[in-house]
Structures are given as C-alpha cells and as structure tokens.
C-alpha cells in the first residue's frame, strides 16, 4: 500500500478492497469470455438460427409440364381455375383481423361468412376442420370454383378486399382425349412427404412443402423434368409474424413438357378393344373349369417395331387418374388398391407376369438352331411325348408327323419342342449337370432379354423369370424349409408336390425342361418383354429398350431434347434364321393357328406375322396370349383367365391393326381412315410462344356403335369416372384441389 491511512484504516480493509477489486474484474472478465464464446466461437451457429427465426417463405408453385401424345394432344395437362385466396399476413394487420373483409368476400362468393372464416383459421389441436394447416404465410385458398364474374368483382374493387386475391391457378388434369385414359402409363401425383423433403434437401432439386410428386408412371419417371421450380419469396417477419421486409425472391419456372410416343387414338382403340375382348371372353364357357372365363385382367402393347417406341399401352382393369388430383379420398384409395377391384393401379403391360405359353416358342426355335439343329428338320410332331411314364401331350392331342421347325411354329406343335429340349437336357447331364453344360435353351432365353427388365422408361417394371438351373437352386434354397414342412408322401396333390420339391426341387428334372420349352412351368414374362422380342424379330434382330417418352420440350419451346431409341442387344440368331422364323410367323397368320383371325387381311400389302399362346396356370383358367407384328408395329395382347390366344385376344388385335392401317373387315385399305399407317416420325410442332400444336381427338368407336356397347360396361373402379373426392386435402395441396362433390357432372363436360 502506497498510502497508509492516517485515520482508523486497518490493513484488513485495504486487503478486502483489493479482493473486491479482483473479484469485480474477474466478473467482468467472465462476461467478456462468455461474450467471445457466443459471438465469435459460435457466432455462425446463432446467425443461422436467427435467420431461421425471422425469415418465412411464401411459395408460388410452378406449373407442371404437360404430357403430350405423339401428335401433341395433351394427355396430362393443367386446367386453370379461378382460385380466391386470403393472405393471413394482410388480414392480421387489420383491426378486426379481417373479419369485415371476409364477411364481404362471403357475400360476393355466395358463401356463409362463418364458412369463409373457418377456412382461413389456422389448425391446431383444438380447432376442428375446416381449418388451414399449411404455412400461415401461404395464401389460403377459399374457393377454387370462383366464376369469372366473382373474380372480377374482387379484383376491380381491390381496395375493398385487402389481402384477398382472385387468380387463375393451374391444377392437374388428365384429359383423356377421345376417351383414351392411359391411366397406368401416366401415373399420378401426390403431395410430397416429410421424408422426401429431408432427403432431397441438399440435392439439386429440393422439394417444397407444397410440391406434388409423381408417384407412378410417366409422372414419376419424368418428375424432375415436369416439376419445374417453384417460386419462393422470402419475407422477413417479426416475432408476431408480421412482415417487415422482403428478403429475396426466386421466380417460379414452369416444368418442361414431355412428348410421348403414345398415340391417344390408338390408345383409345387398344383400351376399348381390350375391354371388349374381356367382356366377350366372360361370355365364353370354359369346359376345363366348368364355368365362364373370368377374364380378370389383361394388357395390350402396341410398339413401333423399328424403334421400340410404345404407341399404346393399355392395362385392364383401369381407373380414372383424376381421382388422385387434389388428394385422393380414403374411399377411392381403398378402391384403387383393394383386391376387390383387382389392383387397377398395376400396369399389367410391364408389371403383370405370367407364363407365355406358345408365343415363347420363338425362343426354343432359336435355341435349337444355336445348339446345332437344323431349321428344316424334320422333327416328329406326335400327339404326345413320354418321359419315363410321364405323358406330355400336344395341344389338343393332335399330331402332325415329321415337320420342320417353321411348321412346328405355324401349328404350334408342342411335342417337337419337348423332344428338342429334352434331348438338350440329357446332353447337359440331365438331373446332374455336367461342368460345361451348354444350357442352350436357357442361355438363349437370357439372350432374348427374358428374366430381366427391358429398361422401359416407366417405373417398377418387373423382370419375369427364366427357370434355369441356377434359378431352381436359388428358389429351392429359399423355399425348401416350407416345402419340407408341408410336404407329405402320398398326401394331397399339393402336399406331394411339396414333398418332391423338398427332396429335389433344386434339380432340373426332365419334366421341367419339357414344360419350359413351350413357355409353361415356372417361366414368367411380361407383355412388354414379348413386345421387345417380337419387335426385334420384325426389325431384323435389334432388341430395343421400349420407350414412352419421345422428347422433352422446354416450357418456352426453345430447347427440344429428343429421347433417342436405345437398344439392349441383338437377338441370338443369324439373318437366315430370322428370315425363317419370320416366314413361319407369317404362316401362322395365313395358314396356322391365327389364320382364322386374319381372314381377309391384305397380307400382300401389309405382311402380318403372328403367334398364339394359351398358357396353363395351376388352379386358374388359361391365359390368352397373342403376339403379332408387321414391318412397323408389334402388338402383344394377353388376357388372364381369358381362354385361348387366338380365341380371346384375336379379334381385338385384328381390330387394332384395322384401325392402325385403315383396313376394313373385307380387307380393303383406306389410308385416310388409317390412324397411323406408318409410325409418327416427327415431333409435334412447337409455336414460337412455346405452345404445342394439338390436333383434335376423334372418338372411337364411332357414336352409334359406342352407345350400344358402352352400356353394361363392367370395369371395376372405372365405373365412377368422376371419382368424387371430398374436401379432405392434406393441407399443402389445398391450392391444387380441383374438385368438390358439388358439380362433378359439370366438370366432366368441361374435360371432353
């Protein structure tokens, strides 16, 4: 201490004062340290938190691109609706929270004031529907059915309606031009999920809460192209949510348009004729089961043989894709996904797999030639083929004597293929395969592209199955426990099968190879796979990846990105084999199993090739298959539990060709009537403003015929085309809700 006190000051006080001083400064030091910790060390973190605090986003959704058919006719587009919405941000600035404005608005819209008020209130635990459970900064739609007059009233007197907007907004529409609904190919949209938002957060195209996402079909496949980019305006808000400034904004960019190779006219024909064929099949008696054919489902593919482009793809049962617009109701959803309706959401052309039956025979034909057998043979076509007491019959137990492979295709002689496949099986070592087993019949099937996806530009394609030795081994491994448990020697048929499978299900038995040779047994194919194969036979051997998308056209029409056909291989056959098979398949259409269906067909002008198939399915009625091609098109049709190939599917396929080529029943060709005499090469014309020319769609079949047949239509889930969706939107999709239960009739008319 420099200054010793003169009066009454003890050193104790001085020491304590120093202690106080040190204490005080260390307190300040503590504050300084903490300040440094918060502001400098963790400053970025808090800055981020602060910006999240005071910025709110308002999203203006991008207009989704259209899906067009090959001629430019929109099959999925948007319709404009006058949507009246209220901004809570503006309303909350008013003294009465906008009650007066809303009451006035209710008057203009002809609604009850209370209803309007309820629509703009925010949902919470205590508030029942109707209420708004989207972002409070998002304009809240009050109605999407405003008339132009009402909209005009609101807009002209904007000063009377602060915070209220009446604007046209785009909502998805599946227009079904000429009644071609194309449901499964188009797919559908539904609101984005929280999980998807989180997942796409850091990707190039993050989702916004208001986004609709393609869930299936083209909507899903081309989602990123169609979606566009939503506009986002960021507002700075205060603690009460009042807007205090505009931070930044990105304009909405509309999505691109996708031109497909679908021709909606052909599509309509395909859908209509498939449905007709199934209806007819249901009237036919099946003597094997003792009841009429069920014809529960079916599919048609019309494909350009030289490019793999899909001209039409129909799957039955079908549904109205508009049911998804604006949020599907629980009732509709159950209907569309239930067993009772037989899963109409499935696109059976790419997701339906079944044994191909005799249309498979082109595969063993090629396999036999690759294995060294000659095309000409001759090979014995007996009424049946026996292996160790087990008898494998020819179709209808009819024999044709010694014939060539070509003739075997024409008359669909099973026993010829039994014999060849059995011989190869033995050569490979029979039940205990040799090390260098050639497995010609299975190898060839793989080379044909079977057992794996064709690569079509539609999601969730299934692969089918080639039941080769490897598959048998894998399948046995997966199932042997169940088989060994349920199997019983000398039990019921199913028990006995299980018992046998348990013992040697991993081995390829002679019977397996025989069944396989005619596309039976465990063989599974999809219609699109068969279309690819028959298309390849037609075009000289190129297996194209089937494609639906043809081009992506930017919204301004300036950039056109064409989707070129891709191939995934060549058929494993020489040109001469191809020609021989081609000739045989022409024979099928002229003098073989399909000849009665192509009676009077102008074969000289439009050479027709065909192969019929009738596949047996354990416990079910036979599957009808019909594979056909000309030089430009291939048409594959299948009807589950529909009867024979030519019987059930024949007339429909013939009618599709009639429509394509303008052929009348008597065989005359009228190219003016032809829908697509040659495949559509050019893309639709794009105008300078980005709009795309679209011709008018005609209705098929012509009026008088339609009225007679349309009645009594029995399609499941399609019998209620309006699919009225009550207002159970999930909040974020409110502004795209497009239907209410009130005027379904009126709406339908506007779609036509």
């Amino acid at each position, binding site marked *: 201490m420099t200054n010793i006190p003169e009066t009454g000051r003890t050193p104790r006080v001085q020491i304590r004062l120093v202690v*106080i001083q040190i204490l005080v400064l260390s307190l300040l030091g*503590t504050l300084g340290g903490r300040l440094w910790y918060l*502001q400098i060390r963790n*400053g970025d973190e808090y800055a981020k938190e602060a910006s999240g*605090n005071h910025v709110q986003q308002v999203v203006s959704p991008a207009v989704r691109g259209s899906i067009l058919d090959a001629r430019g006719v929109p099959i999925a587009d948007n319709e404009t609706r006058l949507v009246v919405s209220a901004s809570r941000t503006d309303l909350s600035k008013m003294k009465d929270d906008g009650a007066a404005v809303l009451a006035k608005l209710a008057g203009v819209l002809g609604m009850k004031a209370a209803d309007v008020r309820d629509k703009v209130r925010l949902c919470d635990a205590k508030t029942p529907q109707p209420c708004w459970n989207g972002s409070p900064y998002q304009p809240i739609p009050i109605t999407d059915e405003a008339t132009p007059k009402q909209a005009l009233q609101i807009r002209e007197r904007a000063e009377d309606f602060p915070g209220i907007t009446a604007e046209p907004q785009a909502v998805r529409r599946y227009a079904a031009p000429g009644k071609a609904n194309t449901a499964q190919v188009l797919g559908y949209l539904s609101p984005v999920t929280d999980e998807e938002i989180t997942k796409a957060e850091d990707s190039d195209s993050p989702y916004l809460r208001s986004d609709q996402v393609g869930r299936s079909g083209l909507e899903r496949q081309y989602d990123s192209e169609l979606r566009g980019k939503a506009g986002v305006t960021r507002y700075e808000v205060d603690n009460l949510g009042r807007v205090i400034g505009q931070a930044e904004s990105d304009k909405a960019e509309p999505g691109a348009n996708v031109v497909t190779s679908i021709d909606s006219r052909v599509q309509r024909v395909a859908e209509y004729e498939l449905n007709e064929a199934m209806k007819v099949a249901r009237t036919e008696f099946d003597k094997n089961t003792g009841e009429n054919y069920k014809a529960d489902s079916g599919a048609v593919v019309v494909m350009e043989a030289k490019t793999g482009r899909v001209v039409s793809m129909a799957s039955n049962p079908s549904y109205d894709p508009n049911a998804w617009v604006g949020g599907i109701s629980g009732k509709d959803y159950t209907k569309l996904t239930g067993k009772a309706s037989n899963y109409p959401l499935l696109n059976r052309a790419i997701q339906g797999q079944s044994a191909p039956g005799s249309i498979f025979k082109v595969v063993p034909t090629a396999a036999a030639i690759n294995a060294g057998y000659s095309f000409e043979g001759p090979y014995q076509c007996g009424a049946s083929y026996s292996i160790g007491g087990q008898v494998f019959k020819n179709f209808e137990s009819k024999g044709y004597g010694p014939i060539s492979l070509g003739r075997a295709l024409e008359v669909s002689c099973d026993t010829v293929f039994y014999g060849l496949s059995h011989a190869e099986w033995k050569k490979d070592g029979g039940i205990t395969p040799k090390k260098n087993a050639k497995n010609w019949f299975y190898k060839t099937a793989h080379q044909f592209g079977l057992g794996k996806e064709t690569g079509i530009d539609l999601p969730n394609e299934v692969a089918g199955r080639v039941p080769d030795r490897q598959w048998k081994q894998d399948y046995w491994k997966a199932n042997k426990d169940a088989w060994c448990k349920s199997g019983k020697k000398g039990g019921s048929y199913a028990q006995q099968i299980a018992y046998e499978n348990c013992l040697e299900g991993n081995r390829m038995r002679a019977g397996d190879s025989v069944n396989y040779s005619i596309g039976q047994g465990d063989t599974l194919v999809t219609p699109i796979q068969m279309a690819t194969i028959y298309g390849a036979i037609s075009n000289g051997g190129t297996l194209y990846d089937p494609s639906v998308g043809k081009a992506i056209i930017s919204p301004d029409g300036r950039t056109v990105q064409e989707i070129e056909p891709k191939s995934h291989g060549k058929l494993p056959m020489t040109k001469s084999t191809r020609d021989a098979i081609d000739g045989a398949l022409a024979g099928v259409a002229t003098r073989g199993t399909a000849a009665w269906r192509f009676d009077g067909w102008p074969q000289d002008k439009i050479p027709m090739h065909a192969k019929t198939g009738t596949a047996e399915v354990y416990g079910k009625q036979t599957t009808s298959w019909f594979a056909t091609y000309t030089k430009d098109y291939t048409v594959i049709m299948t009807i589950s539990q529909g009867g024979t190939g030519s019987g059930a599917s024949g007339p429909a396929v013939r009618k599709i060709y009639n429509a394509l080529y303008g052929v009348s029943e008597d065989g005359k060709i009228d190219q003016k009537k032809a829908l697509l005499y040659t495949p559509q090469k050019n893309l639709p014309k794009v105008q300078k403003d980005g709009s795309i020319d679209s011709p008018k769609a005609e209705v098929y079949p012509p009026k008088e015929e339609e009225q007679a047949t349309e009645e009594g239509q029995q399609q499941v889930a399609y019998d209620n085309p309006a699919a009225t969706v009550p207002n159970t939107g999930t909040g974020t999709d409110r502004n795209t809700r497009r239907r209410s239960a009130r005027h379904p009739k009126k709406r339908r008319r506007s779609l036509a």
Partner: protein
Amino acid sequence: MTGANGFSVSGYGPERAGWTRLFARDSLARRLDWPILFAAIALSFIGAALVYSATRNRTELNQGDPYYFLFRHLLNTGIGFALMIGTVWLGHRTLRTAVPILYGLSVFLVLLVLTPLGATVNGAHAWIIVGGGFSLQPSEFVKITIILGMAMLLAARVDAGDKAIPDHRTVLQSLGLAVVPILVVLLMPDLGSVMVMVIIVLGVLLASGASNRWIFGLIGAGALGAIAVWQLKILDEYQINRFAAFANPKLDPAGVGYNTNQARIAIGSGGLFGTGLGKGSQTTGQFVPEQQTDFVFTVAGEELGFLGAGLILLLLGVVLWRACRIARETTELYGTIVAAGIIAWFAFQSFENVGMTLGIMPVAGLPLPFVSYGGSSMFAVWVAIGLLQSIRVQRPMSA
C-alpha cells in the same frame, strides 16, 4: 471541513481567479474523476442509441413516435447528470447528516408500493405510477439509502477514532437497517433487487472491516435463506420457472426459455462487428422481450457485435476500476464503505444483467446501469456517481 460548498473547497491552496482556477492544481476540476465521468456518459449515450433501436418500431409502446424512448432516455440521463452535480455540490459528508431522512423517505416509498398505489410490471409489484407517463421504482433509491445508512452507522465510531473496526452491536444495527427495506422488497416480490441489496450489504460489511465472522455468517445465512425460499415456495411459480429455464432453455423454448434463447440468438448472431445499429433482425423483429430495459445488452450484442458489446463491458470496467481506486484512496471509512457499496451494487447488477442475456445467470428483472431505459435506475446510478465523485474530491491529495 464544511463540505457545504464543494465548488470552493477551502483549505487547499490559494484562491485563483477565472477559469484557470477551475483547472488549477487541487481545483475541483483537477480533483474530479474524469474517466469515471466519461465512462458513465458514454454508457448513457450508447444506451440511448440501443434503446432507440429497440423501440423505434414498437408502435404499441412509443405512441407512434420512434424517438419517444430515445428522448426520454436522454432526458433521464440529463436529470441524472443534474442529480450527480447536486450530490457533488452537497458532498457525501453533508448528505451523511441527511441520511436518516433519506432512509426514512425511501423506506416509506417502498412501503407505498405495497399499498394500492403500487403497480405491477412484468410480474414484479415494484412500481408507483406517478402520472404523466412517469413511474417510480423506489427499490432503486433504497439501494442508495441502504449504502448511506449502513456506512453512517458502521463508520461513525471508526472515523471518530474510537474504534479500529465496527463492533458487533454496530454491525447488528446496520444489518437491521438494511433488513427492513429488503424484506419489503422481497414481498413485492422484486427478487432481482433483493439479490442486489444482499450483495450491497455484503460489500458494505467487507469494506467496514467488520469481523470475518459477520462476513461468513452473512454468506451462510444467505445460502440458508435461498434454500428456505426454494423449499418453502415463497417464490412465485414464474420465478422458479425463470430459474429452470436459465439452467436449460430448451426445456421450454416457447415459454420462459424463449427469453433466454432469443437473447442468446440475438447476441450470438452479432459476430465480431454486429449487423449495424438498427439493422439487427432479432431486434427489428422484436424477438427479444423487454429489450429496451432488462435485455438492452442483446441489442448491443446483435447490432454492435463483439466490439460494441465488449466496449460496454470495458466502460463498466472503467467505472468499477476507478470506483475501486476511490474506495482504496479515501482516508475516511465512511467514504470507503459508500464506494464499496456502490461497487458491489454496480458490479453485481451488471454481472447479473449481462450474465442473464448471455445465459450464465438466471433471468431477473434488473436494469443495466446507465444503459437500460428507466428513470429510477438512471437517477440512482447517477447519484451513485455523484457520491463517488464527492468522495474523491474531498479526499486529501496523497502527494
């Protein structure tokens, strides 16, 4: 020593004429503690800017005039400055004679709060509405009178040369003097002020040279009292919540923890340089409650950054540092005790106020000296500056 006229301190050097006299050696101007004065003025002006930023768009408070609070803060500063001059002019020794009256007056005002004249603001029943938009917070003045009263009792016999340290009876008397208003303030309840007063008592006793037993006894009693208050549920629910939220603001981010959390976000987002005055989104968006009063430091943190907020701490440090020097250098115990009481008051109140915005202290309704908006507080701290100046002016030069 008369001390009655601080402007012509007699007995120190010859009288000189004109302005030279003002700056002459041993003159008043030379004797004033300029750093503490400048620091206090700077803090008040920084406070004015922060208060302005926090209130300029709070239309529900400022009656549509963005400068309303700025003006009032400057007015309060002016009045406070005048009070300081008055205090220096009177001198702390003169005031010593008036202590009984001042003490009685302040206790009376505090009691008045408990009558229907009192008003509740933010859960604390601590105000008297005077009218004309003015209100008084008597607990602010009690802080001064406790210091003066205790100092008077404790220093009387020591300064007279009778004793080296205050005896137990004197200490007891002085404690009784402090306990009366503290209990009243506790009843309001204004817990923040009670905490400050207890710390003041501790500081005063330390500086008085009272026996160590008193010091440790008081600390022990304080701890026991705190436990008792906690256990006997003397505190209101909201006060306990505030404590809980301080410990973990994420427990209740929408409720009590909201304050601390938003305050921390505001300060943390300031970074080194801050967003600039009036540009802080947390402040502009009014995310931090009570931002012109208790949470004024968050405005500095967000808009002036580490440098600005650090400057405030530095200026507070200057005030406290100089106050410590004044306490150490004065020769009479009375001045020492008063200065120490003021140091304890300023130091704890600043630490508590800034600490709660930084999330290291529980939330309590205390203003930041000079910076926070509020008349009573501003007047009280300026009177305290006046007392410090007076102690310094009247100490004999050590040279």
